[in-house]
């Protein structure tokens, strides 16, 4: 009897694993279909909310590549997000490039900026790293805020329009559900690429660095170089997110570079769960929806957010997604 039981559990393990995978694929497919159909399912207002969630989710996911995967807490991630916004806004304003070309430029400029800032930051550990990223973030903000002749100061870059997407496709910003779909496609593609990176040998190495950088060095790897690579890649994805934000807001302003913008992906990631790939997206969704609902009812959004975060950090370290997944696994 007992041997029967044992063989049962042993043989059921791989199938349980594959059934888990099947459930995951099913859930993700349903979610994707719902996201595509969203403009026909929800009130007009929520198309804007969904667009914002997708963009900020990508921003938070890019942050989590260095935080959750590599173990570096950056407080300057908005520098790359905001830089992406400015690049797209300026290119649209001055040259009316197709959106795709603008986004590509945003990605490259943000990656370059991340590489330069990262070059100095990855030398430091923990709190010093966090402080230096914060300092660089403030510098970038100060430049955007004060270099009026180029950045238009606190007014930001506005009054641009999108005429084409690129690849021969026309695009205008008149219909928000069209731009929502553009964002959805690009974010899904970017997230797929980010996921691929996380599962690769490079991703494995980053996870090892988060847990024990010294041991990775003793395995023969130059940890700084890998940290810098992660920082640059994260900056590139943040640049894409920022680039998508400018046409959505119809403006690139210094607020997008402000340190409070750097705090958003930190909060979202903790809210959703830094240990899970989709955690930052869940966090972004909850963050934006709560912000919308709470601010419509009371002025005390920051207080509510503070209480929620305190509770998360004290009792639900895995974040919302992590807690739910853990709870589901325990039940089985």
């Amino acid at each position, binding site marked *: 009897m007992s041997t029967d039981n044992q063989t049962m559990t042993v043989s059921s393990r791989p199938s349980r694993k594959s059934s888990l995978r099947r459930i995951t694929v099913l859930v993700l497919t349903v979610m994707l279909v719902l996201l595509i159909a969203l403009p026909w399912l929800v009130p007009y207002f929520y198309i804007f909310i969904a667009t914002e969630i997708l963009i900020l989710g990508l921003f938070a996911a890019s942050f989590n590549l260095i935080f959750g995967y590599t173990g570096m807490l950056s407080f300057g991630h908005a520098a790359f997000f905001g830089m992406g916004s400015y690049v797209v806004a300026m290119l649209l304003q001055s040259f009316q490039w197709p959106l795709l070309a603008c986004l590509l430029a945003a990605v490259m400029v943000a990656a370059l900026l991340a590489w330069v800032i990262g070059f100095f930051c990855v030398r430091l550990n923990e709190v010093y790293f966090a402080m230096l990223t914060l300092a660089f973030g403030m510098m970038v903000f100060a430049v955007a805020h004060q270099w009026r002749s180029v950045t238009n100061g606190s007014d930001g870059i506005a009054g641009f329009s999108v005429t084409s997407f690129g690849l021969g496709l026309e695009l205008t910003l008149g219909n928000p559900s069209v731009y929502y779909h553009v964002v959805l496609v690009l974010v899904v593609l970017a997230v797929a690429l980010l996921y691929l990176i996380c599962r690769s040998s490079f991703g494995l190495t980053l*996870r090892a660095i988060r*847990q024990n950088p010294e041991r990775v060095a003793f395995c023969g790897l130059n940890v700084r170089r890998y940290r810098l690579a992660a920082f640059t890649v994260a900056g590139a994805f943040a640049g894409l997110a920022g680039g998508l934000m400018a046409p959505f807001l119809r403006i690139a302003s210094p607020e997008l570079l402000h340190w409070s913008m750097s705090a958003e992906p930190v909060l979202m990631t903790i809210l959703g769960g830094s240990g899970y790939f989709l955690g930052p997206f869940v966090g972004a969704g909850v963050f934006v929806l709560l912000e919308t609902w709470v601010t419509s009812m009371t002025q005390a959004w920051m207080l509510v957010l503070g209480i929620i975060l305190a509770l998360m950090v004290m009792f639900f370290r895995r974040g919302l997604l992590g807690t739910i997944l853990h709870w589901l696994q325990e039940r089985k």
Partner: protein
Amino acid sequence: MMDDDRHVDTSTAARAQPTSDDVILQVSNLGKQFGGVAAVSGVDLDVYRHETLAIIGPNGAGKTTFYNLLSGRMQPTSGRIVFDGRDITGLPPHRISRLGVSRSFQINNIFEDMTVRENVEVAVTAFRGDSHRWANVASRNVPIQDEADGLLARLSLSTLADRRAGTISYGDKRLVEIAVVLATRPHLVLLDEPTAGMTPDETHRVTDLIMSLRASGDYTFLITEHDMNVVFGLADRILVMHRGQKLVLGTPQEVRTHPEVRRAYLGDAEEEIAT
């Protein structure tokens, strides 16, 4: 192949009289000062290829500092370290590891949130120069998976391969620690108290493992150890350190009978083990 050789007297090859070409590691006048205190001073040592050299000495004798200097974790304040004809004095750890020197740690220093297999994979991936690959799927990298699985089998860790390293027993973690060291295919292996805190059974597993690895003829071992049975069972030569300096260097027989060693160390050590 390994298992067959296990019961043969494996030490003959290693104990054959070495020549100076066979020096894999040459340490001269090595010193490390912390403020005014010399943790290691004036150490000269030639390590012969394929030998197993144990380093003993009471706590604070400078063994771990000596390892930290050899592996690049600390910069020496004086002296020179030459490995395989290359001056590695003061190189960073990753460069020294790349050249074929790998070390274990006295306190388990593994990737606790990863599976046992992933722990080994990280090191195998690093050795094979695949760590920068971003478009593959790590868990489907067949050559690396195979090599990791082979290494785990060799250390009898296969059944634990999919367990999270943080959840396995202390003794098994020590073995994972060694697996990670071996995964970078080192020529010189520095083991820092590999059997510390182990049960007699686990200690036996580790000594058997080191015996069989030694028999393969691929490795040179430096071992620090408190367990005198392990030391005298494994070592071709023994270096006795005392207050950061070389006290005696010789065969186990020479060290065992050396009056100064008996006075300075072995007596203390027995008390230490007893407490």
